[in-house]
């Protein structure tokens, strides 16, 4: 059974600075939803609100996991991870001085994930054979593409139902961006995940997204019901892609 995420009327910011203004988003069961927008529009802040890393000033975030609804606002991050929501932070944020295996193991820190650690490790190493080759190498010494693979692998180690990915393409060569996006699709199908992905790279993101939201200055400017709809929208072409 797949899981869904509902964000309703979220406002958030840092100190006196408002970043998000009444943002509402839904990610349906088994969907891949892209959160599009250029730098500084609030994509990462929204992700951090879901993970409990930033406390919103107003609004609610609910996750429905295996038919049970959970309110996420006010919960500690580790409790949110425990529910089955994993997060790949922007810029990968690996543990650079730990080995690849140690990084993966830390992804399964929570008790629920520890029970299925062997199975998930197998799956991760199967999906990313490169990580098996590099298992005893320090994470910080790998290439950007490999690091992104490890970041995805680490998130999967917590046996998530909902996966949040913040800018998977950041700092990667175009060919690796394409490969990473393909991998996300593969993982989503393999794990039956529900995915919310923040991305600047519009063309790559909508290749695998079912739907998308464009966020501008902390507000949802446009909601596209399908990839085609986003692709053909005048507003997006004009303001976002600059065409």
């Amino acid at each position: 059974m797949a899981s869904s995420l509902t964000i309703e009327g979220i406002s958030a910011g840092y100190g006196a600075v408002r970043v998000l203004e009444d943002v509402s988003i839904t990610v349906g069961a088994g969907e891949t939803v892209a959160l599009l927008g250029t730098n500084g529009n609030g994509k990462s802040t929204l992700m951090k609100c879901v993970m409990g890393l930033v406390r919103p000033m107003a609004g609610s975030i609910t996750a429905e996991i295996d038919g049970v609804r959970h309110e996420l606002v006010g919960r500690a991050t580790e409790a949110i991870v425990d529910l089955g929501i994993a997060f790949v932070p922007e810029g990968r944020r690996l543990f650079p001085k730990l080995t690849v295996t140690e990084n993966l193991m830390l992804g399964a820190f929570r008790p629920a994930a520890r029970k299925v650690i062997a199975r998930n490790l197998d799956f991760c190493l199967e999906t990313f054979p490169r990580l098996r080759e590099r298992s005893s190498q320090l994470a910080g010494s790998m290439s950007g593409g490999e690091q992104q693979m490890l970041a995805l692998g680490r998130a999967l180690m917590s046996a998530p139902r909902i996966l949040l990915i913040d800018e998977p393409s950041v700092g990667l060569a175009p060919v690796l961006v394409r490969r990473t996006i393909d991998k996300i699709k593969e993982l989503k199908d393999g794990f039956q995940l529900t995915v919310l992905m923040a991305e600047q790279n519009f063309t790559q993101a909508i290749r695998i997204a079912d739907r998308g939201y464009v966020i501008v200055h902390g507000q949802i400017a446009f909601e596209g019901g399908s990839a085609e709809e986003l692709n053909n929208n005048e507003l997006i072409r004009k303001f976002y892609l600059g065409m």
Partner: protein
Amino acid sequence: MRGFPFFLTCLLVAAGVFLAARWTENGYVFFAGYVVLQYIVLAIAWNILGGYTGYVNFGIAGFFAIGAYTTVAVEKLVPLPLPVVMLAGGAVSGLLGLGMGYLTLRLRGVFFSIATLAMAVVAQTFMVNWDFVGGSAGAFTIRPMTTPYFGMDYIRYLFLLMLGLVVLAVVVARAIERSRLGDGFAAIRDDELAAEASGVPTLRLKLIATAMSGAFMGMAGAPLPFYVTYLDPPSAFSLAYAVNTIAMPLIGGTASWMGPLIGAVLLASLQQLVTVTISSAVNLLIVGLMLVGFIIIAPRGIIGWFGIGAGKRRRGRGR
């Protein structure tokens, strides 16, 4: 129990150290050795927070002196056997660590360090104004000549207690390194946000680290009144404790319990030697020179030299 053979080895080594000290038939060996042992405990305790989680605590003198003052207070109320008093000192300093952690662990990097330094100053001010434990005039503690146990010389008894504490600290530190707790600490040190996003309960782990670190420092400080026989705030809260204790793991290496152990043995022995042969004022000069030297030639400490491990257990933060 996996750690049991290691525990036995530690006990054997400790017994060897004690016998060797006895064999010299020089009472001063116990007197000087006590200080070295005390620094081993302090350095390992500091490393639990500073080395494993990467939070640099400058408030060592605070925890240490609170442990010592606990003894003064307990002595005045109900004289108890020293091992029990040490546990009490550890409990008080551990609680202090927990409280300090709760107030300051939202701060990161240098801001955390400044807050810990401030904690030590606050604790000192408190002690200066608390007449029950002597206030600014200080407190005398009468050291018995011998102990009730086997009529042992009291300094030897203090030496033995501190030796036992060293064994405890080493065993605990090693157990942490090999546990999930140690994995979590390493994650916090490497990237706290990523640790949090991976579901590591960072605040709880950091509180465990500050409490354990503080408790060991308090236990190391508890026998101090009997050792010096006269305790006053400026000497108990001396910044030299903090400087020495931080220098030792940095010289030895922060990645494993061996680092602070080696650093403390090296630095504290050298200091004791120099105090006797040259002058006690050279003490801190040596610390400074060795720190500068080691940062240049061995940024990962002595154990880093010997390449004690890659990965979590072997590689500390590159300094």
